[in-house]
């Protein structure tokens, strides 16, 4: 390598801030796919986490352990499962979704769900049950009491959401396999980084890496500001 680390990152930064349309198209794919995956998983998974925390049924511990284990499943395995579902002869082959954004959304839904379920389960089961009882006894319907509880537990729930979003916005294996890394259609930040690296275009790869880094920083800052806000409320 002739380029030093520093100059590669300088090139990356200038690519990013010169608003290279290719780079921004890739960023747009990443966000639209991952946002849709989050939109689809958020409510059902938080409800499931809640259900696991408050109900008792046979096999409940098995479900919890399964979700906690699936948090660590390699993304490429989920990609493979999605591929086997979506390819022509697969169960869902008739949808013709392979190599489309829908396929990526589907894989990311499967990746985000266990993270959201097990972390929101953790939030609800360690949360203060008096909040639910107080809301209910003051006349709240189950739905409103649930929303109140979510509001009270917004910090740990936000951690769950951010963890799930981080997992899907950074994953490369599943997106590559079921999206096909098609230019302007299914090329997202991680698959583009993989591609540019394999082509030896380190500047482009670094620019995209920096985008991911900035994104992660923004998410973490907003999280920590929310936390300090809550702590200052508590301290007064």
């Amino acid at each position, binding site marked *: 390598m002739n380029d030093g680390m520093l100059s590669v990152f300088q090139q990356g930064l200038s690519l990013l801030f010169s608003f290279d349309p290719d780079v921004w198209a890739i960023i747009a794919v990443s966000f639209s796919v991952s946002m849709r995956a989050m939109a689809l998983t958020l409510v059902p998974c938080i409800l499931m986490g809640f259900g696991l925390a408050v109900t008792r049924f046979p096999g409940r511990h098995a479900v919890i352990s399964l979700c906690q284990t699936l948090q660590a499943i390699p993304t490429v395995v989920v990609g493979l499962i999605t591929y086997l579902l979506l390819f022509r002869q697969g169960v869902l082959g008739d949808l013709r979704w392979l190599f489309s954004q829908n396929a990526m959304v589907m894989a990311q839904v499967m990746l985000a769900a266990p993270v959201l379920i097990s972390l929101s389960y953790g939030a609800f089961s360690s949360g203060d049950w008096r909040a639910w009882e107080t809301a209910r006894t003051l006349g709240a319907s189950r739905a409103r009491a649930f929303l109140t509880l979510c509001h009270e537990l917004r910090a740990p729930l936000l951690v769950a959401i951010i963890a799930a979003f981080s997992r899907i916005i950074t994953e490369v294996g599943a997106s590559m396999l079921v999206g096909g890394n098609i230019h302007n259609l299914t090329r997202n930040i991680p698959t583009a980084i993989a591609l540019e690296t394999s082509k030896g275009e380190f500047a482009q790869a670094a620019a995209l890496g920096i985008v991911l880094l900035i994104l992660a920083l923004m998410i973490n800052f907003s999280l920590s500001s929310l936390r300090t806000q809550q702590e200052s*409320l508590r301290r007064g």
Partner: protein
Amino acid sequence: MSLVATDIEMQFGPRRLFGIPQLILNRGERVWLQGANGAGKTTLLKILAGLQRPSGGRVHLHQDNAATNRWWRNRDPLRGRVIYLHQTPYLFNGSVEENLAYGLKHLALTVEERQSRVEQAVAMARLTPLRHQSAQVLSGGERQRLALARAWVMRPHHLLLDEPTASLDPDSIAAMAAMLDALQSQGCGLLLTSHQHTDLTLSSQQQWLLSEQRLTALPKEQRA
């Protein structure tokens, strides 16, 4: 209208907590519930408030006028009418006033009525200077007063208080006693547990004892 429980029993696995053939809490009546720790006082209150399902039996409001009992509004008849107060109250994130107004959203009230109830409650609970503060910064006595005021604005038929005066300063106890008196005179039925005899238990018409899995009403001569 009375709060009626019939044949309720509570069982935790093999352990039977209590069985009560019948319990009636009349409106406008104050009852002091006594019993040793672990006798199941808290559980009984939660069952009466509809927060916990008993192992058997049922709890309902005995209506004087059955016509007002509209089935589509009454899937959960106890909710908002029989209010349970925790020993250490839970306050929602938000200001004192937001906490006060929480339950009012579930009642069909005019904006003016809502506002006037909040004003009254803030004054009675002596929280006027703190009304826009975050509820999380209140002291123990202030928290307890806010929780009672939050129930008070709902004009409940019955109010169930779990050790409301444990570790409270005399000022707070006096404020709470005033609020309970007001509630009782409006026809609210009160059931409260307490280890000590306080201003709050002073004017109770009945004393109940929960022990050895049974609930008994103490005759006058045995009362504390």
